[in-house]
């Protein structure tokens, strides 16, 4: 059982000419393996900054991030061990894979880096990982530009899973994909989460997929978490005005615009 505690974390950016920007303001939450939390908010609300702090691509200005009670080391082999346990899937599969390298390279690197399997088994493990994300083994020597968006995101997921992490941060993993394949990728993530008892932080701006995919939802607005709770409660009975606004901003498939009664429009 792994627990990641994000406690009273703030992140301040210095913006040249316009003072400081408080991207994340005293945010606390904890994520345990097996649990899925959705972090919902609009662009610029600080969601991705949280993801970057979790992967230590950025350092928090104040507060602590604890993995099983221990602070994240700033450097060295201990940091790499932390990174091996907490992995991230990036938003844009067209940017997160190196155009020069083959799919094999992308999945092989974490395997070799973290010495997940002995050297002679690396190739088998790559094939196993491709199978887990339901990609054909023939993609192995292809380059990212020869794959579709959905296929690339599967490669990115396989790469994230390669080091056998306990926690996974998915930063809008489907927002750059076609609507028609989003569900496939989300279901894959859900399956993998169940199989490996992963803890997933699902960052999104889409309330609908957040409800579909996660147990708990945190709504973030201007660096602050304004509402949190079980997924259904947050969606069906939003307390904070921003959550209500978010909910009404997303189209509801049950309602038609044409021929709506005045009652509906007002409610």
């Amino acid at each position, binding site marked *: 059982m792994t627990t990641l505690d994000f406690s009273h974390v703030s992140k301040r950016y210095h913006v040249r000419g316009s003072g400081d920007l408080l991207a994340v303001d005293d945010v606390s939450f904890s994520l345990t393996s097996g649990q899925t939390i959705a972090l919902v908010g609009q662009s610029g609300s600080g969601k991705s900054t949280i993801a970057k702090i979790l*992967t*230590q*691509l950025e350092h928090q200005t104040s507060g602590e991030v604890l993995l099983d009670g221990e602070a994240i080391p700033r450097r060295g082999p201990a*940091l*790499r061990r932390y*990174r*091996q346990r907490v*992995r*991230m899937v*990036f*938003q*844009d599969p067209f*940017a*997160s*894979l*190196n*155009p*020069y*390298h*083959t799919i094999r390279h992308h999945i092989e*690197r*974490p395997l070799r*880096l*973290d010495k997940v399997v002995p050297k002679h088994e690396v190739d088998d493990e790559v094939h196993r990982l491709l199978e887990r994300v*339901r*990609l*054909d083994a*023939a*993609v192995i*020597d*292809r*380059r990212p*530009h*020869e*794959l*579709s968006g*959905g*296929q690339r995101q*599967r490669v*990115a997921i396989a*790469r994230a899973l390669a*080091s056998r992490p306990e926690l996974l941060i998915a930063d809008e993993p489907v927002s750059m994909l076609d609507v*028609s*394949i989003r*569900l*496939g*990728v989300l*279901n*894959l993530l859900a399956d993998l989460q169940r199989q490996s008892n992963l803890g997933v932080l699902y960052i999104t701006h889409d309330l609908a997929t957040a409800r579909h995919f996660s147990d708990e939802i945190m709504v973030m607005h201007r660096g602050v978490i304004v509402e949190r709770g079980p997924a259904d409660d947050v969606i069906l009975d939003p307390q904070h005005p921003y959550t209500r606004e978010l909910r009404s901003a997303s189209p509801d498939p049950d309602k038609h615009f044409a021929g709506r009664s005045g009652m509906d429009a007002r409610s």
Partner: protein
Amino acid sequence: MTVSNFPPTDDGEPVSDAIRTEPRRPRRMARVGQTFAMFRNGKSIAGLIILAVFVIAAVFADVIAPYGALEKDFTALKQPPSAQHWLGTTHLGEDVFSQIIYGTRGVLVVGLVAGVLATFVAVVVGVAAGYVRGWRSESLSALTNVFLVIPGLPLIIIVASQYDNPSIVLISAVIAITGWAWGARVLRAQTMSLRNRDFVLAARANGEKLYRIIAVEMLPNLTAIIASSFVGTVTAAVLGLTTLAFIGVIPITNLNWGTILFWAQQNGAFPDFWWWYIPAGLCIAIFGMALSLINFGIDEYVNPRLRSAGERARAMRKKGMSLTSGVTAVRSEPAAKSPSSVEIEEDREPARP
């Protein structure tokens, strides 16, 4: 990129059938092919062929040249082109054609050495300045700018005049010192844009070491710019060398096209003895043109928008697509085993380095 014409799998996405259809070339070949992809266009190939002719002339000068470079024939002074002397003779009866052939050596050696040195400095300074942040980046950038505004030729003249007989390596080094800054500047800009790309962040988040991120993840994506910077420096080096030789800063022991012009000018060849100076001048021009063609080719590879409309149409016809008036190109013949097949082919830019 055609992936849309396959039956979707259980979770709604055509996962991998598209990938099964064609056998792959061996990995290594594909990689070599990709590394040299920037040279696979008409302009680059034309430039490379011209360059190859000069290289062959330089390497096999002893075989090709009918006379020695300084072999004098006092019975034939300032002769116009003839069967014995294809490009005529100098005031000492030296064969101009042979001098051109041997002179190619000096040009190529200095160009190559200066190009390699300058590119090395440009890559080290440029990539470092692009990767680090804050005052380190700024100071490296300031250094680059200083070298960018130093007028190259006067500096070379001053340095070269300190030595009685400057060696070829010294000349190349001085040319390189004044020529690396431009490449470093371009590389810095490109590295800055690369370092924030997701795939570099992903490598960092995976815990890759700094040297691996730079050497394995970033440098391959900079090859086209490094190549173009190299070619540009070689051009500048060759022009610098011939200029220096022409104004007499470099001793005559280093025979190159500029030296030929120097002697021609010293001995009153202009304008009557055209065979003496025109071939050397033409060689400089053609050599510069060849390198520029290679560079244009690389530029077009890096930025396909630079291609002229005709070339783009040709490239698309090669892929079996017809150019319609719309923005989306559509394959003219239906793809095999596709029930509802309009395959949309994106006019995708090649992987940008």
